[in-house]
C-alpha cells in the first residue's frame, strides 16, 4: 500500500530531514512511527499526504509514484489517505455532521448517501448523538473522535495519524488507539506517529523508529501483526 524506496528529504538551507528511508506497509497493516521530536516523523507523513515532495527516492501509494504527480492529481491522492491531526483541524463554525460530511461533499456524493455514511461513521466513533453539536462544545477526546470520523468517512485505504493522542489522558488515548486497530482489522493500512512509547508497547504492533532522519528499526520488516515489544 505504502512503499518508500531510499527516500530522502532535504529542506532548503538545512540538513536532511529524512535520509535513505525504505519501508513497506501492506494493506491492512498497522504500524507506529516513533522517534524524538525532529527525527522526521512529520516529514514522513507529509510525504505520504503529498504536502511535500521527496528530494530523492520514490514514494509509492498503491503502486503509484506520488513524488512526481501533477498538482491537479494531488487532491485525488489525498482522498485515499485519511489524516488525523493532533489539533483535530475541525471547522468550528460547522456542526459535527457538517465536519464529518466534508470529504463526501468534496467527492460529490448525493445528499442521501452523505447522510447515511456520516451517521455510520459517527456511530463507529460513538458520537451519533452529537451530530448537531458544534465542535467547541465537545471535549478534547470527542473532538479527536470527530476528526477520526471525518478521516474514515469516505473509506480510504490508508489512515495516517500525527500524534493523535498528544493531548489526551492515558485512558482516552488507549480508547482512540483501539479505534484505529478496529479500522486496521477491516483492511485499512494505519500509520500512527507517536512518541508515547508506553502506549505503543501496550498496543503491540510494528514500530518504525526514526533517528535524525534515518530509519533505525522496523524498516524492511514487513509482517502484519509483527510487534516489536
Amino acid at each position, binding site marked *: 500500500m505504502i512503499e518508500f524506496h531510499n527516500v530522502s528529504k532535504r529542506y532548503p538551507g538545512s540538513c536532511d530531514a529524512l535520509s535513505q528511508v525504505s519501508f513497506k506497509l501492506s494493506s491492512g497493516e498497522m504500524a507506529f512511527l516513533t522517534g524524538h521530536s525532529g527525527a522526521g516523523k512529520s516529514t514522513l507523513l507529509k510525504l505520504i*499526504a503529498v*504536502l511535500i515532495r521527496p528530494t530523492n527516492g520514490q514514494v509509492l501509494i498503491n503502486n503509484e509514484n506520488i513524488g512526481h504527480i501533477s498538482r*491537479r492529481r494531488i*487532491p*485525488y*491522492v*489525498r*482522498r485515499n489517505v485519511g*489524516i488525523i491531526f493532533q489539533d483535530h*483541524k*475541525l*471547522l468550528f463554525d460547522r456542526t459535527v455532521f457538517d465536519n464529518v460530511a*466534508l*470529504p463526501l*461533499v*468534496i*467527492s*460529490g*456524493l*448525493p*445528499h442521501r448517501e452523505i447522510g447515511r455514511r456520516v451517521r455510520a461513521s459517527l456511530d463507529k466513533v460513538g458520537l451519533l448523538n452529537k451530530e448537531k453539536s458544534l465542535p467547541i462544545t465537545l471535549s478534547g477526546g470527542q473532538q479527536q473522535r470527530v476528526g477520526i470520523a*471525518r*478521516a474514515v468517512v469516505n473509506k480510504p485505504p490508508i489512515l495516517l495519524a500525527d500524534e493523535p493522542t498528544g493531548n489526551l489522558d492515558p485512558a482516552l488515548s488507549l480508547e482512540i488507539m483501539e479505534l484505529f486497530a478496529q479500522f486496521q482489522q477491516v483492511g485499512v493500512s494505519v500509520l500512527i506517529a507517536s512518541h508515547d512509547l508506553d502506549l505503543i508497547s501496550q498496543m503491540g504492533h510494528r514500530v518504525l523508529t526514526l533517528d535524525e532522519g534515518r530509519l533505525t528499526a522496523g524498516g524492511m520488516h514487513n509482517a502484519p501483526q509483527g510487534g516489536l515489544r
Partner: protein
Amino acid sequence: MISPGVYIARHMQVMLATLGEMVRSPMSNLMTIAVMGIALALPTGLHVILKNVQQVTAQWDGAAQISLFMKQSVTDKQADQLALILKQRQDVKSVTRITRSQALEEFRKNSGFGEALEALEDNPFPAVIVVFPTEESDNLLTVQSMLASFKERPEVELAQLDMQWLKRLYAIMDFGRRGIWVLAAMLSLSVLLVVGNTIRLAIQNRRDEIEIIKLIGGTDAFIRRPFLYTGFWYGLSGGILSWLLVTLSIWLLSGPVSQLATLYDSNYSLTSLDFYGSVVLLCLSIFLGLVGSWIAVSRHLDAIEPE
C-alpha cells in the same frame, strides 16, 4: 465520478449557500454592493442622458437650411429669378423668399430699432433666399457641397448654413460619448478592484477552512466555487442597485425636464434605461463580479498550502 445531476445540484447548493451567507452578514456586503452600484450607475446614467439628448437632436436633424444673402445691388426681381432657378435643382425641396422690404418690416417689428431705421434713406437689408434641401440630400456632406455651389453665384454675397451649431453639438456629443467610455472603463476597473479586494478578505477569513479542504482532497475548483458565486452575487446585486439608482434619478429629473419641454412647446419626456440596456448593465455587472473574484481567487488561493 460525479454524475451531471449531482454536479448541478452541488452548484445550486453552493450558489444558494453563498447567497445565504451574504444575507446573514448584510452590513459588510452592502458596502461592497453600494460601491459597485454607484460606480456603475455613474456611466450608465450619463449614457442614458446622452441618449436622451441624441433623441432630441435627432428631431432637428432634418432642419438644415441654407440662407443666401444677396448683394445690395441685387433687386427683389433678380432674387425672384434666382429663387426659381434654384427651385429647379434636384437636391432642393423648397425655396422661401424674403424680400428686402419684408426683411426691413420684420426687423422693425422685432428689434425695437424701428425709429433708428426711419433715419436711413436706403433699405439696408439684402434680399434673402432660404433654401431647404430635399430629405435625401439632407446630410452634412451634400449640404456642404450645395453651400459651396451657391457661394459661387455672382448674386450671392453670403451663403450660410444654419447647421453649423448642430454640427458643433454633434461634435460635443461625440466627445461626451468618448468621455463616458473612458469613465466607464475606469469605473469598471475600480469595480473589479473592489470585488477582488472583498473576495481577498473573504479568502483570508476562511484560510483555515481552505487549508483543511485542501488536506482532505478538495480540488482547486471545489475551493474556488463559493468565492466565484460570491462574486456573481456581488455583480448581480451591484447591477440591480445601479439600475435602481439610474431609474430613480431619471424619475426625479423627468418632472423638470417635461416642464422645460413645455416651455419649448414640446411634449418631450425623458426615457429611462430600456430593456436591452438593462440586460447589458446586469450582464456587465455580473461579468465584473466574476472576473474580480476570479482574479482574487487565482492570486491568493495558491498561496494557501497546508503545512
